[in-house]
Every structure is written in C-alpha cells, then in structure tokens.
C-alpha cells in the first residue's frame, strides 16, 4: 500500500520567509486535503514533493523512494497539477497531452494515442481535442490539467488549488474526477477553499505560516467543535465591540449584514444561536489560535 512519509521538512527562502517549518506528515491512499490561507506554505510543500524545489532539511519518502534525493524516481510516479497551469499557444489538446505522455515515458505511440483519447474523453474534452488549448475556458484548461496529471498511472497525485476560478458546475465535475482516481492512489489536494476538503477528503491537514497546525479526519475536527460555535447577525457598527467581547472566529456578510461566528464553551446568550460547526470554523479556529 502506497505510503507518503514526510519528516521534519524545512525551507527558508533567501528573503528570510520560512515557507516550511518542521513539516511532518504521513499519508496513505485516498484523498488528502491540505488546507491553509494564502501564503501558508502549501505550494512550497507541494512543489517540494513535486521535485521542483529543493528543501533545506528533512526527508520525504514515497514508499521506498527517497523523494528529495532521487527526483527522477519520484517524477515517474507523479501526477502534478500546479496552481498555475498554463498551456502553449498554438498547440492542440491532443498535442499537449501527447507531449506530456512522451515525457512521462510512454514510448509506444499506439498506447500513447489510446491513453490521450481515453483521458480526453474522461475529462469530457474529446470533441475539442483538435482545438488550440490556449482558447479554452478556465474550467476546460483545468480539465486538461487533470488529464495530464493522470498520465502514466501515477502513485502520487498532487493538485494545487485546482478549483480556484471555476464555476460550480465545473467544480463539481472536477471533484468527481478527483474522487474517482483518489480511490487507488495518494491524492494531495491543496486548497484554501474549505468546501473542497469537506466534500472530498477523508484526511486533512491545516497549514499556517509554514507549519502543520492540524492533522486528522475532517469529522474528528468537526466533532472537536461540536456545541462550541455560536452565530449572530449584528450591525456593522457593533463589530468591534463584539470582537472585543467574544472569541470571533469569522464574520461574513449575509443579506447585507455581518454574521459572526464565535467560539464559546457555553451559551453566550446575547442573542447567539448554536450552530453545527463546519470546516470553515475549524479552519479559522486553528489559524486564529496559531496567530494568538
């Protein structure tokens, strides 16, 4: 069974930013959600695992592959959809996938053609296969992206912020695709969108400021906040007063007024109603406690 084991991974950028701080993770087959705000170090971790960036210290093993020292072996087992997935101008979807398939070592032309067709069909782009990818919509491009990531039977699939900018329909299709492949291999889904993780992942971790601040099952995380999250719709002018008085996890606008979530062991009264915690609450709770 596939197993990815990351130990004490560290990375500091030349400008002093600590992108990875003692990152230790262990994951196996299935969808793994990596949640964190922008700049948390998710992409640094993804890129390090995708052999695109050197780590300063630490180890990472995919089964018996020493990921940091044998990048070529990792690359043979890897499917990667980076956060920024662009395409060449004047190249069709088929040409692009064929190119990647060749680079991933599928030497047999007939197999390559079959695979490219199969994947294009799977991502529902078969009819557009001979069109220039540059002209595709964001969602179509992402589907090309996931198709290329699936090439070559990868054992480890890394997708970095895949649903940013997709409309809900495209996002659903994308999730279905991921869920399908996630049954057999390790899929790491890095995102700052909480719903992605809730819908797809059996395991998750939350990253902030280069550290893993939470690791576990989404259900466990939710359970830990059960009965502690309270909600109230308030006036905008009162926001700072509430912030001073309560442990505000989040506020968002609902029907034109701020609706705040607070964390409280007991009923705070004051017009707050109890709500079932969602992953967003978990996310903000962990991040805020980290900052504090």
């Amino acid at each position, binding site marked *: 069974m596939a197993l990815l084991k990351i130990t004490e991974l560290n990375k500091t950028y*030349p400008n002093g930013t600590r992108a990875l701080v003692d990152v230790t993770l262990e994951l196996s087959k299935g969808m793994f959600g990596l949640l964190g705000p922008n700049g948390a170090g998710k992409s640094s971790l993804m*890129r390090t695992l*995708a*052999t*695109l*960036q*050197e780590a300063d210290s630490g180890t990472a093993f995919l089964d018996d592959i020493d990921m940091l*020292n*044998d*990048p*070529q*072996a990792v*690359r*043979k087992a*890897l499917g*990667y*959809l*980076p956060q*920024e*997935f*662009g*395409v*060449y*101008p*004047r*190249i069709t979807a088929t*040409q692009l996938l*064929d*190119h*990647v398939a*060749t*680079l*991933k*070592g*599928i*030497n*047999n032309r007939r*197999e390559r053609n*079959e*695979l490219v*067709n*199969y994947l294009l*069909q799977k991502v529902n782009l*078969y*009819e557009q296969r001979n069109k220039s990818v540059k002209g595709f919509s964001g969602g179509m491009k992402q589907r090309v*992206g996931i198709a*290329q*990531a699936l090439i*070559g*039977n990868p054992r480890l699939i890394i997708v970095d912020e895949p649903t940013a900018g997709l409309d809900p329909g495209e996002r659903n299709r994308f999730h279905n695709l991921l869920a399908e492949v996630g049954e057999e291999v390790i899929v790491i889904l890095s995102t700052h969108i909480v719903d992605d993780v809730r819908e797809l992942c059996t395991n998750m971790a939350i990253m902030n400021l280069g550290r893993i601040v939470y690791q576990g099952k989404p259900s466990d995380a939710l359970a830990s906040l059960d009965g502690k999250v309270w909600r109230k719709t308030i006036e905008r002018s009162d926001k700072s007063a509430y912030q001073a008085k309560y442990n505000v996890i989040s506020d968002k606008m609902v029907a034109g007024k701020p609706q705040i979530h607070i964390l409280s062991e007991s009923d705070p009264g004051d017009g707050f109603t109890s709500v079932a915690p969602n992953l967003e609450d978990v996310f903000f709770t962990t991040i805020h406690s980290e900052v504090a």
Partner: protein
Amino acid sequence: MFNIFFKKEMLTALRRPMIYIFMFIVALLVFGAVVSDNVVIGGVVGDVKKNAPTVVAIYVSILSIFGLLFATAFFNNAALRDHRNNFHEILFSTPLSKSGYFFGRFMGAWLLAAMVLLGIYLAFIIGAALGPAFNWIGPERVGPTPWLAFTNTFLLFALPNMFFAGSIIFLLATKFKSTVISFVGTLLIILGYIISLNLTSDIDNQPLAAMVDIFGIQAYSIDIQYYTPAERNTIAPSFSGYLLKNRLLWMGIGLIILFISYFTFSFSAKASKRKKKVNKPKEETTNFSAPLLSSLNGTISSWDTFRSFFRMSFLSISKSTTFIILMFFSILLLISNLWGGFEYFGLKSYPVTYKMIDEVNDISSLFVMIILVFFSGELIWRDRDNHIHEVVDSTPHQSIIALIAKTSSLVLLASLLHLLLIGIAVLYQAFNGYTTFELGVYFTDFITDGLPSYLIWGSFFVFLQVLINQKYLAYFISILTLIILDIIFLVFKIETNMLSIGSTPSTTYSDMNGFGPGFTGHLWFTTYWAFFGILTLLLAALFWPRGMNKKIKDRFAISRKALGKSYYGTLGFFSLTWIALAAFVYYNTQVLNAYDTSYEQELQQVDYEKKYKQYEDSPTLSITDAIYYIDIYPEERAADGKIDLWLTNKTTSIIDSLHFTITEDYKHQLDIPNSNLVYEDKALNYYIYKTQVPILPGDSLQMSCTVSYKAKGFENEVSNMSIVNNGTFFNNFEILPTFGYSSSFELGDKNKRRKYDLPERKRMPDLQKECSQLCMNNYLSSGTSDWVNVETYISTSEDQIAIAPGSLLDESVENGRRQYRYKVDHPSQNFYSFISADYEVARRQWNGIDLEVYYHAEHEVNVEGMLNAIQRSLEYFTTHFGPYYHKQARIIEFPRYSSFAQAFPGTMPYSESLGFIVDLEGEGKNNVVDAVIAHEMAHQYWAHQVIGAEMKGSTMLSESFAEYSSLMVMKQETDEIQMKDFLKYDLQRYLRGRSRETEQEQALMHVENQGHIHYGKGSVILYALQDYIGEDKVNQALRNFLEEYRYQPPPYPTAHDFMRHLQPQIPDSLQYLITDWFEEITLYDLRLEEATMTEQGSQYEVKLEIIAKKLKSTPEGASTEVPIKDWVDIGFYRDADEKELITRQRVYLNKEQIELSFLLDERPQKAAIDPLRLLIDRVYDDNVKPVKQE
C-alpha cells in the same frame, strides 16, 4: 492633462535605471571611437578631427539606428503600461482628455528616446578632453567643441529619427498591444533603411536615395560626399540641402502616422473577437478504455523525448509571427540586393555562384543571428512564460535532452532559412539565364560555414540564457558578445581565431581554386568551435533551472540529481575531444605556423626604420641580367626557386658591403661569391655581406639566391595566398630579397608614426626641375635595376600550364612535370610574374604578335572580346605611340584573392573577378573589359617602355597615361555622351578620394602614388585636354616624350620632361590649362541659373544665365575663389534624357555672372554648361536646365 501624463512619463523613466544604462552604452561606444583609432563608426580617417562637426553628425545619425531599439522600449512602455498593469479599464473609465493622455505619453517617450543620444555629446566632450590628456590620441586630432553641430544634429537627427520611428512604434503598440510586434516594427524600419542603402550603389540614384533614407544618413553623406578634410572639420550640418528635404519629408510622414494613430485610438478596451459558432454534427464517440501502458515501466526513451520537445519547439518558432516576418524580410532584402547589387562602372557581372553565396551569407549572417538570439530566449523561457514549466519539469525527462532538442530545432530553422535563401539565389541565376548551377558549392559552403556557425551560436546563446536565467539580461549579453568581444580582442591586440567565438581562417571561394588554401584550417577551427558549442550546451544542462529554484546552488543541486552517468560520460568525451582539438589547432596555428600579430608587425616596422634608415642612401648594385629557375608544386602548395643574378656597380662609389632585406614568407638562401655575412638581424630580416674585394664603379658580380615555400599544416590566417592548388601567381619582388633598405616597409599612417616618435614621412621625394641623383632610379625598381635581360625556366605539374613573361622557347614534359623556358624579347623592367594553373588558351595572330588569353574553362564568355580589345589597343598604340617590342600579348586569369590587373612585360595577369564574369550583353553599356585591357596594354608603353624617376609626378607618366590611352581606345567605338557616362565614375573616384585624403592632396603633376589622383583625376584631365587641344596634339606630345626616353638608361624622366613636350602642343589661349590642371588643384563651380527660349522664325534664340566660379584648393582641401578666365562648353540637348547634343560651343567666360544668347536651328529640350562634364565640378545637377519657352 497633457502636462500630467508628460511629466509622469518622464519622471517614471528618469527614476529607473534603463535610460541611464542606454545612455551609458551609447556614450561608451562613442568614447571608444573618440579616444582610439581601433574603434571606428562610419569610417572617418586622416585629417578629419576626432570631434569634427561631420564626425559628430555621422555618429549621431548612425547611433540613432541603434537608438531605435531603446526607443522601442520607451514608446512601447508608454503605449502599453496601463494595459500591462490591467489598469486601463479603470483609467479609461475616468473622464480623461484623450489628447492629453495620448500626446502626453507620446511626447514623454519621444523626449526620453532622444535623450539617450545625449550620451554621444557627453562622450565627445569627455573623449576630446581625456584622449589627448592621457596621450591616447594626439592633441592635433581634436578640434574645438562643435557646439553648433551638437545642437543641429540633435535637431536634425536625434529628434526627427526618434519621432518618425516613435510614431510607427506607438501606432503598432496601441493597435496590437504586443511588445513583439513593436520590436518587429522597429526591425522593419531598420530594414527599410537597409533597402534604401542599396539604391545608392549607383550614383545616378543619389537624389532618390537621399530622400528614401528614413534616417537622413544617406542624405547627409550625399551632401558632404565631396567635402575636403578642411571642410569636414569646420562645417556643421545645417538646415539645407538634401538633408533638410529628407527631414521635412520624414517628419511629415511621421506626423501623419501619429495622427492616424491618434484618431484611431480609443479608450474602450479592445473588444475580444467573437468566433462564429459552427454547428458541427456531433461525431460518433467511441468509448476509449484506459490502455495497459506496457511501455511505461521501461526506461524513458531519449529519442522520443527529443522528438517531442523538438516538435513542440519547431512548431512554436515556425508559427511565430516574428519568425515569419524575419523570414519574409530576409527574402525581400536578398532579392533587393541581388537585383541592385554588384555593379562596376554601371555594368553587372554574371551571377556566378560565389557572388550568390556572398549575398546569401551577408543576409543570413544578419537575420539568422537575430533569430538565434531572439529565439534562444524564447525557447528557454517558453515553458515558464506559458506557466507550464511546473508540469513539464515534474515529468521524468532528462533536461539535457530538452535542451538539445530545443537547440536543434533552432539550428534547423536557421538552416532552413539559409537554404531558402540559397533557393532564391539559384532561382535568380535561372531567371537571368545563368545555368551553371553549382549546388555542390552552395551546399559545401552551407555545411562547412553556415550550419556550424548556427550550431555554435545557437548553443552558446542557449547557454547564456540558462546561466544568466534572466531573459532580457541574457539577450543583452548575447548581443554584447557578438559585438564587444571582437572589439576587446582588437584593443588587446589578440588575433588568434581560437578565442573569438566561431572565428575561423577566412576562405574565399574562387571558381578557379575552389574554397582555397584557408579551407583546411577553416574546417579544423569549425570543428573546434562546434565542439565548444556542444560543450556549452552540455554545461547548460548542469545549471538548467528545473523547477522553481533561483539560487545557482539549488539549480545545480537539482539538475545534478537528474543527470545520469551517461551525461557525465558524454560531457567527459566532449571535453576531452575539445581539448585535443584545441591542442591540435594550437600546434598548427601557434607553433608550426607561428605568426606576428599586426601589432608586432607594426613594432617591427618601427624598429626596422629606426635601425636601418641610415642605410637608405647607401649605394647599391644594379641587376643587369637574371635567370629564374622556378618549380611550382601546386598540389602541395609549394614552390622552389633559384635565381641567378648579374649585378653591376652603376654608381660612382666603391661598394664593399651588400645590404639585403628579406621577406618572411619565403625561405631564402643567398650565395654571394667572395663575400662574408657580417651582420645578421633575424628578427627584422636585415643582412649585410662584406665583399672580400671592393666593387669599383663599372665592376660586376654574379650571385644567386634560392627561395622556397611549402605550406605546413594550417594557419590562423593563410599567409601566402600566392601559391595555391590552381592559380598560383607571384612576382619576382615577392621572392627576391630587397637590395638595401626599403622604405616601403615603413609605417605609413601618420598618427601611428607620431605615436612611435617617427618623423613625418614623405610618400615620395618632391618633384625636381633640375634632376639630381634621384633621377638615376625609377620608381618601380628603386635603383636595383634598369633594363634587364631575363630568362625563366619554370616547371609545374603535368595538368597545369606555367607562364612567365617573354617568348616561349622550349616546352617539354618529364617525369610528370611540365617544363617551360621563356625569354623576354627586349630588355625590360625587372618586374616578373610567375603563374601556374589549369588553363584553356585562346590565341590569335596580329601583325606577327601572338595574342593569347589564358582562362578558366568556365569563364570563356568574354574571351573573344578580350582578344578584340588587345588587338584594338595594339592598333591604336602602334599607330599613335610607336612600336610594340614584345612578340606576345597575354591576358592570364588568376583567382579572385586580389581584384586587380597588372602589367608585366607582354604579360598581363587579370583577376577572375574583374572582366571574365562581367555581363557585356547590354547594348550601349560601358565596356569595362575593353577599358581594363586597354589600360594594361597601355602599360606596355607607359611603365614598360618609359618610366618615371623615383619622385612625385611619376605615376602620372604611367597610370594617367595608361588611363588616357585606354580612354582613347574606347572612344573609337563609342560616342562622347557614352564617354561622359564612363568618365563620371573616374570623376567620382577622384572627388571621393580627395575627401578621404589622409595626408595631402597633390596636383596631378605632383601626384605621389595616390590612386584617386593618377587614375581618377588623370583620366578626367587628360580626356578634357584632348577635347580642348585635340587628340592628335596630346598623342604627339606623348609620342615625342616616348621617343626621347624609350628604353633609355638613367637619368629617368620626370613630369617636367613630359610638360616640356606638351607645352608646344597647346595654343597660347589655352596655356593656362597647364597651371590649372597640372600644376595646381583647380575646381569649378558652374551653374546654369536659367535657360529661356524665343522662336525667331525658323530659328530659336536661347538665353542663358550662368554663374561660373573657379576655385583653387590647398593640399589640405581649403578652397578659395579666383577670377574665372576660362573656356567652357555650352551645349544643347535635343532630348530630355540628355542623350543627344544638338550643338556644343566653347565660350570664353571672364566673369562670375554672365548672360549668353545662342541662335539654334533646332528646338532644344535642355541646355547645359560643360555638357560633357570635362571640368571638375563637384555638383553637376545644377549644370543642366530644361529650356523654358517664353
């Protein structure tokens, strides 16, 4: 509103380093040119000051072309900044004034672009101050700071050029919003300029060329083309002449373009194109299932990876607009060059393969370099620019394969472009009915020159892109290595081809001798550089920034992990092979064939002069008889010779020491009986022998000398182009030691002489009226011989013919060697050629003289015409000058390593590039073949029967007379208008030559071996003279002069001796011509202000208003007006094309402004003063006017 945007544009740019970097680059280039003679922009030499107004103008105008690249950046930024920052949608929705925004931005960019060129003026000021202070240049090379030229050139060149270019770039940028298209636009402007340059190849097109040149450079050069150094040093460019017209034209066009872009400019964001939806019937979809991927778990196929990368790169370049436009324009440029190029005296040569190759290589070397620089960056940055690098980099391919594939696609596309150009050249040949297609030659040239150089530079640029890892910085460094590297080597006096990337010994393709003696070395150097290129590419893989790593250490670390053992094996193999090649090349070019750099040679020249000048006037022996034994081994490029010389002491002194200077190209061994070598300077090759018995006046001595040459290995540059596989040609001066000190080895350049503390050098002694000892030497043999009896035994391989001057006495073949014996029929100049090649021979007999043309088999087209020309020359010369003393007159073709014809006794070698391939089929064209052959034939009289003393004026007696004789032969066959058409090239040669005079201009009678005077001016003056006093009078003078001196022992005649014969032939009224034309430098400024006509019954009365000035010029070129009292022709043309004269009358002009009236029987279309252009008038356009009817 305008102010806001204008200021913002300026301030933003002024706070950034870009403008200062640009300014610095420009200033550096100019500074280099001001303080050093090694850096030259636009070719200014001689007496022109380093900071002369004209020099400033030339630098500003030429650098404004380079400035365009900088300007593009400013204009493009100004037009696109808001778009780039995606700010335009916000900005354009505010209530802006369109004109304020548009013109504010434009003016800001315009001023910035022009400001870059201020660096030039700064460099002139600093350079003029520092140059003399640090003794880099002499104080006399610097004039006062030309402030007027500074302001005028800024107004006339910097601002208008930037304005015009800016208007186009701004238009393109606002329309297409693409930096690439903006740069392509810039390129098009530069190309437009290059195409307009081709138009000036013939002087008839000058007015047109002056106008079509976008930058005003041509207009200005035409305005100043006949300026003397004195004028160049004082006259600043002004708002007049062609320059002003040109500037107004292009500013106007720029203004129109600017307004077009203003009116079509719109704030609303460019509407994205909507594509029509086409309802295609849905195709039947089969359901694909995931394949098993049996091939996956093996190793990654390098070949497949290569192919895939190659295909992607190839598609990306070949489909790119930039590439397509570059390709399109290189084709256009080639076609324009082919149709407009290689003219000579208005005649075109046949499109022989080597000319085609030269044209193709000129174009491809420019365009392919642009493509290599630009696309090396594009390919290396393509994945990153398109944000697909993370995907690509995380696949298990090998970086080195990707790099090789990308570079290969680049090299292949460059090659395809080259081959396309070759295809066009071949089509051009076919189109012109030239059907000797030598595809093998094209191909060999491409394979051994074009292809490897693309490989070398392509790899190297890729290496720079990878190593530097910043696209634009790498572009900059790439261009810098192309330009600056050679300048650095020049400054540090490094000449080896081993350091200058891609350099090889030069090769010149000749129809006779193929790729020539440099080819072996060229191949070795090419291999050496090709391995260097591959090596840089391999090294690039080590630093390839795979993934997201920026630090070089990380890049290195991550690359290394992915490079297998085979990589290091390959790297090792190529490194070792390259080192071995380097060693081999080094051994051949630096050890086996060690050479002196030109700097070392310069030092030797200085030493030689300083040490041995003292012996210059020592008496020497004179050769009376010589026998040459020459064996040529063409296939080995070797020659052996032995020369037996009989010498006599013709001086009045006793001679006991013999001095020799030996040339280094040949190995020498002197054998002088009864004498000892007493002094030996091997470094400077100076030797002194002491005779055991002093040689008294009149006594003789016999000595012999053996020489040998044999090519070994290959050289950095071929030092001996005389001895080759087919077409060996050398003369006796090359193989004989020089007797005594030779002033011809002295350093000539007067600025260099000053640098080495050498006294000013005279090119020739002054002309003397009462001739002294100087008249005992002629200028050709300098006292080492007079008229000599010569015999030659010459041998060569069996398949070649060997030729020496004289009648052929014996010919035999022995042991595969062909042997000949030649003997000259009359004692002659000791000036001998030795030639061997595989020839066809055409012969004709004329009055007992063998006329022969020895030619390369493919070059037979003009041979018959050459025989005719020899015959016509002999007919004219024997009738008008006197007998011909040889029994043969031979024309012999030699390879185009030199492009001259030369006269030896009865024997005239003639370069293959000169007359053999000229297309004479055009009716009524100037017959250059006739001209050159008649010139060399005339030398059989002028130089070989009579030769001048070693002093000023003597080359008039040979070169000007030969020109005159040849003109007279031509004149037999043509009319006076045709002659004028031919002579204008001679006049131009003279006028251009005097404007580039490095020392002093001399009057014709005092000419000191200056080609533009003894050929150019000599032709014009003597032709005019025969028109003024009559052909028979001039011929009579020449004949009398010849009869007095023909084959006479010293003293030799001087120019005065000829004038003595000429004077009686000139009528009193024209005696002034001697002073004006021969003794002084005289120019005319003749103008026809107006020509009006009234009909008088059946006749036409024409009134002319004339301005006629006469000018005298000093040797420095300063001219002053003198009163005119001259006879000048007035002519009337029947047609507007100036092809037929109704009448030509000579009138006496004695004041500057004059009105004349003529009565004609026929209606004239045009009137002209000096219609045949006999007088030296710098501007001829104003001599002719259409006749207006009143």
